[in-house]
């Protein structure tokens, strides 16, 4: 079935994936329905073991679903593998792949040949990308000597070699320090700015990353999508009101003076829980202000002027995506990682081989050696 120009970039219907395991089979995906429009920056957010990597592997044609269908721009992941591989690329976090004996530039050129670029064209594109990702000084450095952040930049450049229409990023900042992770995120943003219309599917368990980059997010847990929406929409599920922390030099009439204003749901003096019994008395007044919507703030500010109060500080308190997750599931990401299986840092399902053993038992492949 050929794709149409209007086809979604990613269209997954009823995707399940079950791994054979002893004593019981493991269901990594339990029915995923997902549609990503062309040009969208879409995030899959969830804890380890949620099924994010399994879904990416299905969409990148490395794994077949147990049931359901998935299409990339109308091309079926089960049957149109060659076509899909020409228009997509993938980068995973924590990758140690590569040939240590090669220079970064050579490593990338080798992959440019795999993606159909000519020899000379490949070198040209590699040099451009190396400069663009900030690896200019490391271009002639052997892959085995690159730092983790440099290696990930190189991987990112590899992912862009074929100018993919769909770019799959599986926890691309995993294991990177703050600076390196920021660089990689900037690259993602920069690429999309340079070529609008390209689609990105990002999996991550870093909420701030998803919040910052993604236009829409699907929260995934235990093989199911719990909610889909923009970050703002998802947060509104948890907290429909707007909460502000307002610090004033003085407030005649106390918080009650604000509570009666239109649009104000409540205004309560904040208790400084961190102050000890011997702490000096605060010189300002801090109010936790709950509004029906952000627009009510203007009225509050105008009223403060009439009350002779001046604003010292104003901060909006927003729920995090983890709050959204807790709201949906009833536990946090850390709770889930504490409960996860016997110590592995990766997904329970996603690290299982075809004939896995119970953690702690010898791997049959180990014994074969």
């Amino acid at each position, binding site marked *: 079935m*050929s*794709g149409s*120009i209007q086809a979604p970039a990613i269209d997954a219907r009823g995707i399940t994936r079950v*791994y054979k395991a002893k004593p019981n089979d493991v269901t990594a995906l339990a029915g995923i329905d997902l549609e990503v429009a062309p040009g969208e920056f879409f995030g899959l957010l969830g804890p380890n073991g949620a099924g994010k990597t399994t879904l990416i592997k299905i969409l*990148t*044609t*490395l*794994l077949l679903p147990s049931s359901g269908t998935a299409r*990339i*721009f*109308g*091309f079926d992941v089960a049957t*149109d593998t*060659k*076509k*899909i*591989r*020409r*228009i997509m*690329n993938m980068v995973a976090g924590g990758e140690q*792949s*590569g*040939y240590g*004996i*090669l220079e970064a530039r*050579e490593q990338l050129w*080798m*992959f*440019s*040949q*795999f*993606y*159909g*670029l*000519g*020899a000379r064209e490949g070198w040209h594109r590699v040099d*451009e*990308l190396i*400069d663009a*990702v900030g690896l200019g000084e490391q271009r002639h450095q052997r892959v085995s000597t690159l730092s983790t952040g440099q290696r990930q930049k190189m991987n990112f450049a*590899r992912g*862009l*070699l074929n*100018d993919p*229409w*769909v770019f799959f990023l599986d926890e691309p900042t995993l294991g990177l320090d703050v600076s390196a992770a920021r660089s990689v995120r*900037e690259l993602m*943003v*920069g*690429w999309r*700015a*340079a*070529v609008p219309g390209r689609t990105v599917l990002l999996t991550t368990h870093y909420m701030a990353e998803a919040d910052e980059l993604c236009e829409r997010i699907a929260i995934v847990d235990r093989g199911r999508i719990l909610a889909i929406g923009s970050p703002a929409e998802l947060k509104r599920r948890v907290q429909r009101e707007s909460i502000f922390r307002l610090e004033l030099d003085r407030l005649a009439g106390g918080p009650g003076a604000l509570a009666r204003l239109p649009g104000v749901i409540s205004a309560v003096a904040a208790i400084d829980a961190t102050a000890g019994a011997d702490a000096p008395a605060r010189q300002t007044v801090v109010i936790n202000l709950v509004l029906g919507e952000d627009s009510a703030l203007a009225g509050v500010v105008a009223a403060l002027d009439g009350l002779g109060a001046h604003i010292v500080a104003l901060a909006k308190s927003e729920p995090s995506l983890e709050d959204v997750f807790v709201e949906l599931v009833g536990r946090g990401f850390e709770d889930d990682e504490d409960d996860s299986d016997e110590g592995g840092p990766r997904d329970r399902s996603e690290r*299982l*081989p*075809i004939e896995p053993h119970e953690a702690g038992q010898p*791997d049959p*492949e180990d014994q*074969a*050696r």
Partner: protein
Amino acid sequence: MSAPKLRVFVGRPTASPQEAANWTPRQVWANNLRSIIGRAYPRVRGLTREPSWVIFQMLLPFLTTASFVFVYRALDAPAAYIGFVVIGGAMTAFWLNVVWMMAAQLYWEKDQGNLELYFAAPMNVMSVLVGMAVGGLLMSSTRAISILFIATVVFGVSFSISQWALLIAVFVLTLAALYGFGMMLASLFVMWGREAFHLTQLMTEPVYFVSGLNFPVGRLGFIGALAIALIPLAVGLDAMRQLAFVSTGPTGTPEPWIEALILVAMTAIFIGLARWLLHSMEERARREGRLTVRWR
């Protein structure tokens, strides 16, 4: 935050993903050919960047071959048998390249996390295997030539070749059959996991024995006949010996031209099987999730 140079990120402009996805047959062939060169590149580069192979792949193997020469000398064997050992030693280089650097190689690639990147790329994975073969051929050829040359000079081996064209053809066909065999094994090894390493061990001394590496395979009787039918090293070696040492007389094995035809058939069968097996194994691996899992 400021975006990097915008222009840099734009690669080949295509109007739509459908246009980008539909390659012409010429593009497909070009991609596969370029992939062969791409994959051969690290092998070739590796030769210059870590030259220890000159000692371990050239000098020392010559000494091993020399050991078997001295066995025959200790037995006062005819000179032609020295030549048998020398040819056997030279061909060992190609056999070991097939076994270690091709058959087991996809398993190593899976172990290092490169295999999933190969399968996620548009080229045919057979191109990767051929690239590995081409890259490894340089080292193997150097080893074979050095053994042949040094041993011929040091031990005074004299060849009596009357059919040069057939000899060259047999050599080329032997390589083709060997590497086809290696490709076939590579796909099996992907699925067999750790067993792959052990199976490569099985393909050293036991195969040397049944292939008649240091003696005429015809002396093995039925086993030798079976080896000629199944193992490209056995049939190629026997044919090359018959052509290089015409004076030794009948060996009890088929004529060289018949063995050349056997090699043609082997090449076709092994490469055909390799294609089918690679495709089947990829499908099975995608179904069972074996492509991307690396155990530790």
